[in-house]
């Protein structure tokens, strides 16, 4: 099963589950905001999404991943809006029979997400300035 959500509040992780009979591997990734963005100290990040397409593209990648790798479930939450340093912006859970396919699947999924999902970071600097991350002409 595939679940993807884009949400604008702190991420509540998907619940753990001791009741599964066949999935020997539960793999969880939390991507968190670091205090520096392109070498600059930030106050927080603001994630901007292309509403609609961000979620549909995320879902498409999740389904692709589940088709390529023999996993049971892929759950994902991506946060948008303002995210404080240290907080989770991306939460991914993959359940599979064995760990190897889970590790390969999570690697592929996040890598594709970072290539294709129309979400962008705006750095909020210490002085309050807001600029697109990696913007060169600031």
């Amino acid at each position, binding site marked *: 099963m595939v679940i993807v959500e884009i949400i604008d509040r702190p991420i509540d992780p998907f619940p753990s589950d001791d009741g599964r009979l066949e999935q020997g591997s539960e793999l969880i990734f939390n*991507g968190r905001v670091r205090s520096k963005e392109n070498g600059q100290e930030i106050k927080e990040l603001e*994630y*901007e999404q*292309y509403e*609609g*397409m*961000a979620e*549909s*593209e995320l879902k498409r990648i999740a389904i692709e991943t589940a088709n390529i790798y023999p996993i049971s479930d892929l759950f994902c939450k*991506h946060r948008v809006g303002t995210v404080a340093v240290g907080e989770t*912006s*991306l939460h991914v859970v993959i359940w599979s029979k064995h760990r190897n396919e889970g590790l390969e699947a999570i690697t592929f999924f*996040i890598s594709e*997400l*970072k*290539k*294709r*999902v*129309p*979400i*962008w*970071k*705006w750095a909020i600097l210490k002085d309050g300035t807001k*600029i*697109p*991350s*990696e*913007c*060169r*002409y600031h």
Partner: protein
Amino acid sequence: MIKVKLKCFSQVKYALGTGEVILEIEIGATTTELEEMVRDRADGRLDGVGLSVAINQQYVKGDVVLHDGDEVVLIPPVQGG
């Protein structure tokens, strides 16, 4: 002439100073022409920024003819995760 809705994100929004603009373009105008128009407006501020294109919430490749009422996004490098 036809109208398309250009939605702007990240560096495109920053360069154009707007999140959304309705553009009048010639019938038969393509995504490549739209991108040139937008880069002109940005006046150098999008130099070196690669742009993918989505029409009506789907990525498209190559040079695609636009239609009246299309929602178009010139997508700068994405940064999710």
